[in-house]
């Protein structure tokens, strides 16, 4: 029997080469690599867009672009960063690491996996194509409504909105397919002996993410489809003149949109404790408490959505409910923070690049979390809402909490994936440049928001000039620092010091029992967990 399996596997290894290998691959590592590469490319695309915006905001007055184009850049920046950079990065890690961590030969549904990835490039092209079409005089550019696509502004908008709607549909299908695959893999393909409560935390984070995606993506798909029929087929879902309500769109959108925040963060919360325990050389603190907290946050995330639009005018009981339910998210989140810090407490710490990012991530994501707690307050939110305070807040959660977390993961697993060590010195420089310029970019934005600068404006009053200038300069430093990251990854893929199987002294988990890089088919013998 075992002989037959071996022969079978050998046949699989004769995969096509060149471009056909990547187009037809069903191998989880190949697909994971494609996800991560796609994510990195789109991270640079979305980043360049916002550098255009920051250049325009460098000083008062319109210098570089018209307001129409400015509005397109901010909206597409957000859509690209959320759907094409952060989410694919998490899916890429899931593809690469889940089977390795739970002792599975591959993802459960490999063809679905391939399809899930190859939906992404067309979606990204759809999203950005209207920019190019506008150059040829077709349409008036990309979606200019912000990523939230609020009706009726989006009903009024040009063809960019239609492109965005179809792009969101494709991205949504891709996410749902990926989620199905993750759930099936985790529930069915764990190594013998690995009970759910012995699973790596990353698997837990992703399992909950996958459930959230399946629960909320269809709502978003429904909302944008209603938008499409309002635009072209004479329905009035969001038009009061026909008995509809513009606020319905906001309810539907944020029913997806708030869980989406946790969809972006839960995978990071999954692998971050693993990084912390590795570089603390100490077991993870409060495994069960963390798992229950992840579930609690997942459950709470679908019942707090209306705190994103407190200012639309809601009944007092609704305001109070959404305020207190939002505040209560801080409880399980505080448990997580407690466990993360207790994991490094009395460890034997060393600060390689992944650990630097992990510790920086706790601190900066903490700022995002605490400002979120303040934002939950309805009365104060009237001031914060749609001001730069909110912009700063969600960049602390999504850039520091999301992207810097992903970067920690990249440095942590890159030696395992490529078999080479990255340049440690460059990695550390990258961390410090990123952390400092990130704070220099967004701390001024907190003050801008408090002083009364609304978000999404292409030009501003003179009293906002100094902070905007500081923020713009730092944003360019932040953007340019990421070139170091790209360079470091490319050099690591091409060669470098050979990585050991275990890579890190304190590494724990099945992925570190395999060679670096792992063979094309990971486990020839199924591991068992005691």
């Amino acid at each position: 029997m075992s002989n037959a399996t071996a022969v079978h596997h050998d046949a699989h290894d004769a995969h096509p080469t060149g471009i056909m290998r990547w187009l037809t691959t069903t191998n989880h590592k190949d697909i994971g690599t494609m996800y991560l590469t796609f994510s990195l490319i789109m991270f640079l695309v979305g980043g360049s867009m916002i550098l255009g915006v920051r250049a325009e905001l460098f000083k008062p007055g319109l210098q570089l672009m018209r307001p129409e184009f400015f509005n397109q850049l901010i909206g597409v920046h957000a859509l690209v960063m959320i759907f094409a950079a952060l989410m694919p990065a998490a899916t890429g890690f899931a593809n690469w690491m889940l089977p390795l961590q739970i002792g599975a030969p591959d993802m459960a549904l490999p063809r679905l996996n391939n399809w899930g990835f190859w939906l992404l490039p067309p979606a990204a092209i759809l999203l950005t194509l209207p920019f190019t079409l506008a150059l040829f005089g077709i349409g008036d550019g990309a979606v200019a409504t912000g990523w939230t696509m609020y009706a009726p502004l989006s009903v009024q908008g040009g063809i960019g909105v239609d492109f965005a709607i179809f792009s969101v549909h494709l991205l949504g299908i891709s996410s749902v397919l990926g989620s199905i695959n993750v759930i099936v893999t985790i529930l069915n393909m764990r190594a013998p002996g690995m009970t759910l409560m012995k699973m790596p935390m990353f698997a837990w984070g992703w399992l909950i993410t996958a459930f959230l995606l399946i629960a909320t993506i269809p709502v978003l798909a429904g909302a944008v489809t209603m938008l499409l029929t309002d635009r072209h087929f004479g329905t009035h879902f969001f038009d009061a003149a026909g008995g509809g309500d513009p606020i319905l769109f906001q309810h539907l959108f944020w029913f997806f949109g708030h869980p989406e925040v946790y969809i972006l963060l839960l995978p990071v919360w999954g692998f971050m404790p693993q990084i912390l325990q590795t570089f603390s050389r100490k077991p993870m603190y409060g495994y069960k408490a963390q798992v229950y907290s992840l579930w609690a946050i997942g459950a709470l995330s679908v019942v707090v959505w209306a705190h994103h639009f407190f200012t639309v005018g809601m009944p007092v009981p609704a305001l109070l409910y959404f305020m207190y339910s939002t505040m209560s998210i801080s409880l399980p989140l505080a448990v997580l923070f407690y466990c993360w810090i207790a994991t490094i407490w009395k460890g034997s710490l060393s600060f390689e690049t992944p650990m630097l990012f992990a510790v920086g991530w706790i601190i900066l994501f903490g700022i995002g979390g605490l400002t979120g707690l303040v934002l939950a307050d309805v009365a104060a939110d009237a001031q914060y809402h749609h001001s730069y305070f909110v912009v700063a807040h969600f960049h602390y959660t999504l850039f520091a909490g999301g992207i810097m977390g992903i970067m920690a993961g990249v440095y942590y697993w890159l030696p395992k994936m490529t078999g080479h060590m990255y340049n440690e010195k460059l990695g550390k420089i990258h961390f410090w440049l990123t952390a400092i310029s990130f704070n220099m970019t967004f701390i001024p934005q907190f003050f801008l928001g408090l002083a009364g600068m609304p978000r999404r404006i292409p030009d501003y009053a003179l009293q906002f000039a100094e902070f905007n200038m500081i923020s713009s300069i730092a944003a360019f430093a932040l953007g340019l620092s990421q070139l170091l990251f790209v360079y470091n990854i490319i050099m690591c893929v091409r060669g470098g010091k050979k990585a050991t199987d275990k890579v890190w002294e304190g590494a724990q988990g099945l992925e570190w029992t395999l060679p670096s890089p792992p063979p094309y088919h990971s486990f020839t013998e199924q591991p068992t967990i005691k």
Partner: protein
Amino acid sequence: MVMQFLKKAGLGVLLAMLSMAAHAEFTWNFPTPATPMAMDTLHVHNKFMVIVMIIFLVVLGIMIYSIVNHRKSKGYKPATFTGPSTRSQVIWTLVPFAILLYIDFILMGIPAYHSVVMMEDTKTNADMVVKVTGSQWRWQYEYMSGDAQGIKFVSNLSTPQDQIDNKEPKGEHYLLEVDNHLVLPVGKKVRILLTSTDVIHNWWVPAFGSARDAIPGFLRETWVRVDVPGTYRGQCKELCGKGHGFMPVVVDAVPEDQYKVWVADQKVKLAAASAGADKVWTKEDLIANGKNVYEKNCAVCHQITGTGLPPAFPSLAGSKVINGPIFDANGKVLKDSHLDRVFNGKNVMPAWKNTLNDTEIASVITYERNSFGNKMGDMVQPSQVKALR
């Protein structure tokens, strides 16, 4: 040599920063509150900021202690615990949880409750009602009660386009100035009703602490009671299209007697405008008046030169609508004629019947029919617009 250079450079940077700090207007917190609600919001905000700052610093302190002391390079041996094991440890893990519960629902939760109730109580003891209508990209104000009932006007950005395009130096209130200020009496509770004619806007004056969406097809409400006389400036803060950054709110809060004078003055102007609608105007006067109206209201989309921004905003030069007849043989207004389009709007084009008065509509139509290369030669009298109402 190198050290000397660094010292000099450092001194230079320090001086530059000091001079920047001396000239710059850095604001670190909410503007000085002018209403009870803003006062309340500021207190709530300051209190919460202190609380989260303390939480942050305590946690950061613990982390820094660990980072400094529990290092492999110092030979620190790792512990092996994976959770609280003794009873006292369990209690210690519950303490932060209890503190957070207290902060969330007592320390922050109770004042937050009172603020919400206060913010939403728009009706009790309200002295007057003002209706605010947002449209792309201007605000319209209408006094709904009291002496001022019937006063209504449009409030447009008054910053010249040349300042925005950096062709002229920017004024003191760049982008935060309008032609007609909303005037409110000091110390009166004003119930503000909000709606919109096109997309969602948000009426926001930071010093008032109130921000509320203006939603097409619905009424929303908020209230202000300005206690300190002065001029207050704010902006739309819901993305509403290309002019989102260019629809400021300016409110003058004046003492009661000044307010009465202002109301009387506005009433006189209203009567004059109404009389203007009944008299017969010459074409030259209509065109001169129309140019003014056009530049304030129409140029933002159709541009000063009438060339528009196709495809969203069509050109007026040679436009079929403008160069077509307005009245049929019986003197009835044709559907989709120039007057019908301006009066009732279509798609993105707003209906102006509630925003502009008869004279303004007649003037702007006459101006458009005889400008930008359009040579219709005819005119519309204010009385003909009045007849449509």
